[in-house]
């Protein structure tokens, strides 16, 4: 099929089998290897992408379902060479160990903060509950999302 959608802000048009898994299309055909495949059955969240701003699992979507959508992968999150605040917080908090879950975690956090800009720790845990970290680095990950959620602090008077 001829497939048209928007990928990380740019229009894409390509020829692909309509039943190609989205994770394979993104990784193998389009070279976006930030999208990881872990379990391949919706349990681990490593393949999370944003579809029209909503976190979904690219291992459980077929190419046809992308028609007309706007897709964001981890490669498209930084704007004009500046990391997204969630990415910046992951760096500052040391929320990355092996890195395999990180793209999915970051995108899940972006979705969560879009719905609830000030989540409590427990709500952060719930929001990330579809993403597994094999290194079990959850504390730092929750710390990072908590940091990203904080509004910019007003500068203190000297």
């Amino acid at each position, binding site marked *: 099929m001829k497939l048209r959608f928007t990928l990380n802000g740019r229009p894409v048009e390509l020829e692909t089998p309509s039943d190609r898994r989205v994770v394979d299309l993104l990784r193998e055909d389009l070279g976006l290897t930030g999208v990881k495949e872990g379990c391949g059955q919706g*349990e681990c969240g490593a393949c999370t992408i944003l579809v029209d701003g*909503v976190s979904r699992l690219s291992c459980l979507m077929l190419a046809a379902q992308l028609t007309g959508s706007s897709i964001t992968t981890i490669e498209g999150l930084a704007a004009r060479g500046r990391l997204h605040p969630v990415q910046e917080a992951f760096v500052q908090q040391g929320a990355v160990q092996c890195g395999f879950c990180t793209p999915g975690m970051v995108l899940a956090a972006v979705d969560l903060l879009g719905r609830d800009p000030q989540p409590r720790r427990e709500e952060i845990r719930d929001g*990330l509950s579809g993403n597994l970290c094999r290194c079990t680095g959850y504390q730092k990950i929750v710390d990072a999302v908590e940091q990203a959620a904080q509004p910019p602090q007003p500068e203190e008077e000297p």
Partner: protein
Amino acid sequence: MTAVLLPSGLEELWALWEQHPTAMPYAGGTDLLVRLRKGLAQAPALICLERLKELQCIEERGPELFLGALCTHQELLEHPLLRGRLPVLAQALAVLGSPPIRHMGTLGGNLATASPAGDTLPPLYVLGAEVELCSPAGVRRLSLTDFIRGPGQVTLGPREIVGGVWVAPPSDSVRQHFEKVGLRKALAIAVVSLAALIDLTPQGVVRGARLAWGSLGPTVVRSPRAEQALLGGRLRLPELRAAADIVADEAAPIDDLRATAAYRREVAGNLLLRLAQYGGG
């Protein structure tokens, strides 16, 4: 290659299905796509229903609510009518799968999959929900009991899909309760779940009780005897224990990789004890 079709409305769906009579419909794909990949299902062609615009609404229609089959679990969960009028369903949706699964999976998909562990099913049973089915010939309504015939077995004619669910919200005197016991907090398939609607008099006496358990049998399990046992009493531990004993005695669950039958029987009864929180001491 399997053709994947993506109709954006019912008229387009019926036309495509006419051209591909053996096509298998799916909604969020969280169940079917896993089974296809494992070789547990075969589909010569697929029709993805997630863009059917007519079936994505949540509306009050007379005394009932209509929940469109293609609403995702998240869309239902965030809707004020669900939280306000059907908290028993909202509580089940809140623990269904994980956030991305709730962003993909749909109410119609949960019904048509008819898993013994389907999280929306016990709430819909106690609510007395009816299922609306759509086909080119028109729409028809079935009780949930008539729709779900067994594990994975539902009443759907050729070229018929689940269009939505009709529910009459209970009155304000009815306490709505759902709890799922799983092996972890997220992405847990129910070991046992309980949905309960308890109608209390202002004095706290039970004047109506509807109970339904998930993962306790091939389909949702009801216990008219346990419901009867609660009538006329209060939601206190002795009364609840008596009902729990009835359920534990009646239930015939299975052993599987998640739990033993004996554990399921015990948990099924014990889940009733939580209703003491509505008893006011």
